[in-house]
């Protein structure tokens, strides 16, 4: 299959190993991977902040960049949700509505693409250590991705997966919310870090580098040893 990657801007700049891991995994499965270099951002920061005109302009660029794709795969539940769920809302009653819906319909979060589209749950990966899984809100509630990453992780040799209680409470990031209401965001982050600490896991795994950026930022400040890892980093580790 010809797979077009959407690598979110912060993965491009802060966590390029996640993007590289996606390429490695998909190519190993025998697919043709392409990366349109004109891509930038999905527009979510402006959209969530209420600046829909600016968000639409950015999103229109993305719609154009990805118009020729067969499927679009992104290692982010949040950016994936922006494209799949929110593009149709953002472009409602505009001339680009059809094009936006077409892009929305062919956008997949990485783990759901592997499990639901490619029917792969065992990549033959191995990763030694004890880990817990954080459900990113957009992936979970906007895209309905809950079991897919867990199915993939269960097949990773050497990995002990312990659920935190609860795994699906928000980490408090929320984009600009984290700096507009830092006291609330940090309090939520503290709750998340406490739930992670209770599991005594060495790693916290997620579908979203943005959640991990927040969680890791707090763990580091608290002097905790737990490391945040994107699901892709675990799956691509031994490939």
């Amino acid at each position, binding site marked *: 299959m010809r797979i077009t990657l959407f690598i979110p801007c912060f993965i491009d700049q802060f966590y390029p190993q996640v*993007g*590289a891991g996606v390429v490695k995994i998909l190519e190993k499965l025998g697919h043709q991977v392409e990366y349109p270099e004109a891509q930038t951002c999905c527009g979510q920061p402006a959209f969530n*902040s*209420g600046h829909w005109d600016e968000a639409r302009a*950015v999103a229109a660029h993305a719609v154009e960049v990805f118009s020729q794709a067969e499927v679009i795969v992104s290692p982010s539940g949040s950016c994936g949700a922006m494209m799949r769920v929110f593009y149709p809302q953002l472009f409602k009653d505009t001339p680009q509505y059809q094009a936006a819906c077409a892009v929305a319909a062919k956008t997949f979060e990485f783990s759901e693409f592997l499990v639901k589209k490619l029917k792969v749950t065992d990549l033959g990966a191995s990763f030694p250590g004890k880990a817990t899984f954080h459900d990113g809100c957009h992936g979970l*509630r906007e895209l309905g991705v809950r079991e897919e990453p867990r199915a993939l992780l269960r097949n990773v040799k050497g990995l002990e997966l312990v659920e935190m209680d609860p795994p699906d409470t928000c980490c408090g990031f929320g984009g600009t919310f984290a700096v507009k209401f830092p006291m*609330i965001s940090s309090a939520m982050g503290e709750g998340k870090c406490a739930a992670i600490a209770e599991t005594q896991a060495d790693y916290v795994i997620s579908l979203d580098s943005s959640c991990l950026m927040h969680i890791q930022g707090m763990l580091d400040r608290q002097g905790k040893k737990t490391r945040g890892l994107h699901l892709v980093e675990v799956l691509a580790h031994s490939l």
Partner: protein
Amino acid sequence: MSEYSQQFKASATRLTADLDHRQWISKALRGYETKRDEFKGRFQSWEEARQAAAAVKYEVINHLDRYLAEFVAKLEARGAVVHWASDAREAREHILRIARENQARFIIKSKSMTSEEIHLNDALQKAGFEVFESDLGEYIVQLRDEPPYHIVFPAMHLKRGEISQVFQQKLGAEPVTDPEALTMIARRIMRQKFCQADMGISGVNFGVAETGMISITENEGNARLTTSLPRIHVALMGIEKLVRSMDDLALFLPMLATAGAGQNLTGYNTLYGGPRLKGESDGPTQFHLVLLDNGRTRILADAEQRDLLHCIRCGACLNVCPIFRNIGGHSYGTTYQGPIGSVITPHLRGLQDWKHLSFSSSLCGACSQACPVRIDLAHHLLHNRRNAIREKPPALEKLAFRFFSLMMRHPGLYRFGMFMGKLLQPLHPIVKGSALDPAKAWTKTRETPKFAQTSFRDWWKNRPQNRPT
């Protein structure tokens, strides 16, 4: 920034620093979640029940004129007096007039958030009436002279010791902390008050259009006494609280109990259809229903957000909200707290004054998932944000997002911007944590991520197979 926004931030700062309080609220609500899930499991399909409830509400709200007319006609035929109030002031005036005309002196109330919305107690007390809340939680917060903390659990923020303290101070009660003993203190007083009251004011959980009756849900039996012992019963109801039929009620009553309180069914569910009829030996001789608009028709006129009127005030969205759990109910400064409050308060009390509530969310969507009538609260927060920005764009922020948009539409500019970020990041430690730190809202509690040596884009371009030949 509006005065309300400043108050909100100050209170949120105080409450998020109070770890004890946060843990107390979280623990209580985790307990609720366990019970709720247990009773959700008793539905054949909770998801189908949600779908059905949403469909009923959609039908009623989109034909509200018709259902209201049917409801009112049936009620009036049984001797009820119906009063229409377009805003809070009109509603208060109706109720004050009823009280004055009937020389009422002592008024007893059962739980009603709508009465909080119109600040009824204040108005009644200022007019010289004695008002007494008969719901235990409401009574406790009334004694403390504070608003309900939560629309369903008004005194959930208080520990037994604090309740005992207020009973000692205000009622001269003995210092006990056993829940039963505490309840008995309130009960002894309430029993006397029920007998003294000449007017009872209640809320309404559902109006049944088909039969012209109001349904009240409660656990303490106080609403039954409030509505049946005094000679006058005044019910206050938002115009949106209708269902079509008794069949609908069979769906909504267990849903409200499950979603709202983690119960199978609440202790008492009672239907009231008007005053005492000829030949009946008890019940109020007058039954008044005050129907309140107070901004609801504005929401009705907004096709995109009309489904906010589906809300049955169960509190499920508050219970699962991580914002609520961390800042508590009083921080909102509103009648309705949590996600539903953050969405409707800007509609009811002014978008620019209350928009901060729609912005103070991580958009996690737990509320949308919990809502028994499937109101997509998280998406409505986004709509409010968009409307607020469109109506009055904050200049600096607008400029920032124009720049963001320009950069993200031009890959060259994006690469340049990221290059500059990477170049400047090593200088960040110089100002980090100081007043000059541009990222201080982040760095106060969190470390920052580091720009990678090689971006993904550069890695991709330099792969042997991608290098230009």
